[in-house]
């Protein structure tokens, strides 16, 4: 067996015919063309069996070494020259003739076998991947813990294992001019709306970009209004949520290399739901949901309200509370608006630093932040302790919103409200809320109104909105998925 780098081979080839350039010429063999294509890929391997005139071309790190040894190397070691044909006729040796297919196969982790003019691809792919672990961003207390990983195949298998029906269809669509990352579009035939499927397929095919690395990135490329502050497709990291989405008649988009999976269409309120709501008792599930909407309101308006009240509407606070407020503000040299912005930005610093640092250092940030903000800032008279409470409550509330992407959007919108409150008091808050409402109303998610089922009002969907009704009552699929089979179970 001779192993050598294809580079050297190419040098030889170049010496042989000088006029040959990058474009494959017709008189070169497929093997030579492939080797040509892979020029400069120093990580590719070319194994040559001189006695059989067989070349194996592959990427060592993309194949499973054990399988490669068992399926390919060992048979070729032991095979006699006469038996070679029957060996190559084995069913999982797939004959190929096109150069493009060969290259794609090799890049996918297959081994290309060249024997004279014949070429075969053998799938022994087994790249290194992460084990299945609980999702970091979408944790759950009850319910299944496994989360998606960065391997599309594994993710697909997790979904297929949950939705055992032949009607679960998968469209494979490559995205990215350079990377050719595979996107999989999943839906259940008969439940999902075919128009939406073709619309989304169309949108994915029309993407003009060099590379897509993550599902969140993909979702921004196929949204109705990509410039909006708010995400229009929710991406989840847990197979049970995805299975639930499929059954609701939604369309799932999976991207190779991303643990996040897009559900389309989504409504604004989907971002406030978690798997836990469904696994808990319906009353506790409902209570938790109401809590989250409360948290949403606090996140977006609480600090703004503090600014508005302390700088314009002192008469709104009962006297006993007012004294506390005024005393705590007594030493602060800034106006409430600057004070609030300062604290909010500090909290954002802390959050961002905490998110980027390793866990062990992250704790330090917590302690430093706690002491600096909690004690020193007040004692130094830079802020009032009432504001600390207000900012802390809204920061906590912002993390109650389950979707990180949505929570980040809301936090940004909050800064707008704080500014408006500082300028116009309560009127400013109302103006801010109005702008947000108008903007949210004008959003759509593959044509579905973003604020459904609140506006437009779909009474049948209210059983899975603010409420999480008992399962007996949830008999229809959400209106926004426009399923041809609206009622669940058999007709």
């Amino acid at each position, binding site marked *: 067996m001779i192993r050598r780098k294809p580079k050297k081979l190419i040098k030889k080839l170049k010496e042989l015919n000088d006029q040959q350039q990058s474009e494959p010429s017709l008189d070169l063999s497929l093997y030579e063309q492939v080797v040509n294509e892979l020029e400069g890929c120093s990580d590719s391997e070319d194994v040559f069996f001189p006695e059989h005139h067989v070349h194996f071309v592959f990427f060592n790190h993309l194949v499973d070494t054990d399988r490669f040894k068992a399926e390919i190397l060992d048979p070729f070691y032991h095979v006699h020259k006469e038996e070679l044909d029957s060996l190559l006729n084995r069913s999982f040796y797939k004959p190929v003739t096109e150069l493009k297919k060969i290259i794609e196969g090799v890049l996918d982790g297959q081994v290309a076998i060249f024997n004279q003019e014949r070429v075969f691809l053998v799938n022994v792919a087994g790249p290194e991947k992460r084990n299945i672990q609980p999702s970091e961003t979408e944790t759950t207390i009850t319910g299944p813990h496994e989360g998606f990983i960065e391997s599309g195949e594994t993710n697909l298998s997790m979904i297929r294992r949950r939705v055992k029906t032949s009607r679960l269809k998968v469209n494979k669509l490559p995205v990215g001019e350079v990377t050719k990352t595979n996107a999989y579009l999943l839906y259940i035939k008969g439940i999902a709306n075919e128009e939406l499927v073709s619309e989304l397929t169309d949108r994915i095919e029309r993407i003009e970009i060099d590379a897509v690395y993550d599902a969140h990135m993909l979702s921004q490329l196929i949204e109705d209004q990509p410039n909006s502050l708010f995400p229009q497709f929710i991406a989840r990291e847990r197979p049970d949520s995805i299975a639930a989405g499929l059954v609701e008649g939604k369309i799932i988009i999976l991207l190779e290399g991303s643990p996040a999976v897009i559900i389309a269409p989504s409504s604004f309120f989907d971002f406030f739901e978690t798997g836990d709501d469904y696994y808990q008792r319906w009353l506790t599930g409902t209570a938790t949901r109401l809590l989250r909407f409360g948290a949403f309101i606090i996140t977006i308006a609480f600090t703004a309200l503090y600014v508005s009240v302390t700088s*314009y*509407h002192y008469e*709104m606070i009962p006297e006993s509370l007012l004294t506390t407020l005024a005393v705590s503000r007594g030493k602060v040299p800034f106006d409430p608006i600057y004070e609030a912005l300062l604290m909010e930005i500090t909290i954002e610093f802390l959050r961002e630093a905490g998110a980027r640092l390793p866990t062990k250092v992250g704790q330090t940030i917590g302690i430093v932040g706690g002491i600096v903000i909690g004690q020193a800032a007040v004692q130094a008279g830079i802020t009032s302790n009432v504001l600390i409470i207000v900012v802390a409550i809204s920061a906590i509330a912002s993390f109650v919103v389950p979707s990180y992407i949505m929570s980040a959007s809301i936090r940004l919108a909050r800064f707008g409200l704080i500014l408006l409150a500082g300028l*116009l*008091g309560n009127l400013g808050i109302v103006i801010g*809320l*109005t702008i947000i409402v108008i903007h949210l*109303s004008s959003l759509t998610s593959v044509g579905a109104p973003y604020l459904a089922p609140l506006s437009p*009002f779909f009474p049948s969907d209210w059983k899975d909105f603010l409420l999480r009704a008992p399962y007996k009552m949830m008999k229809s699929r959400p209106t926004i998925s426009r399923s041809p089979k609206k009622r669940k179970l058999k007709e």
Partner: protein
Amino acid sequence: MFEKIAPFHLAILIYMIQSGVTFFKLPRMLAVNFGTNGWLMVVIVSFIVMINLLLISLVIRFRVGENVFEIMEGLISVKWMAPFYLLLALTWSLLSILVGKDFISITQVLSFQNTNSTSLFVILMVLVFYLGMKDIYTISKATNIFFILTIGIFFLIIYHIPYTSLERLTPFIFKEGKNTIEGIVQLYTAFLGFEIVLFLFPYVDQSKPKWFRSVYYGHFLTTVVYSVTCFVSYLFFSLNQLKITSYPVLNLIAYIEIELIERIETFVFNLFLIKILVTLVLYLWASSLLLERVIPALSRKQSVAILIITSMLITLNVDVMSEIADWLLVVGFVAAALAIGLPIILLIVIGIRTYRGDHRA
């Protein structure tokens, strides 16, 4: 599938267009113009409005599938209709601008005594433009949320029940009133907004044959909100007090005190901004339809902007509260006449066309 206004949303839309800034003054207007037990007049005038609505429903029933423009232009060509359309557009956009000015002037009284009212007004107009340039379906969706945000205010009235007394109502009906006719006109303008349905119906989901009922429901909701609030005002204030209170409804809200928050009127009044917004936007929307019919080259944004700027220029010097009230009375009177006149004119046109044997529909 989603791009039509469902009847339920039409009802909300009608309610939101109808109830506007006049609401705050309504109990005083009733007390001044009708005197004792003036709240009864709300019910009576509401009934007259119902008749007006009936006329509109007839127009829609006789000409299925045609919009107002097609009905009119079946008889008279666009060229001749243009001045009429422009006049209508101007009236309505003036009305909406004046309502906005009125609202801003109250806002100024409440919280911004020292701020220039023009800049507040411009902010309101920017909001109006932002919502007005969207399509009617989006406006309807936003209106639903606004409805949810504001309807809760109505239930605050429960707080006042312990402070009411039937003895203040007096057994006399419409005594000590000043000017009944003016009062009825003012009350009628408080109900205005329903006539927009003439332009809305092509956008309504008409799969249910009785969709027009939702217009009545919307009007009914307005009537309930108006009459209950006025009734409670009559029980809460004494008659002479009501006559001198500028905005009795605001005083009602201001009376509410709960443990955590006092004086919620400073917040609640601002919430009315979004109610006013809907009224303004829908009037401007109808006006822009009219303008675009005359000059089809205009886009929605352009026509809304033109209407806002024109009306703002016309009312540039109308700043003082009493001036606004005078203008509102006149423009409101014209708008009320249009609300009654327009369906009658349309019915006459339909009659003439039927007589001539024009059965295009």
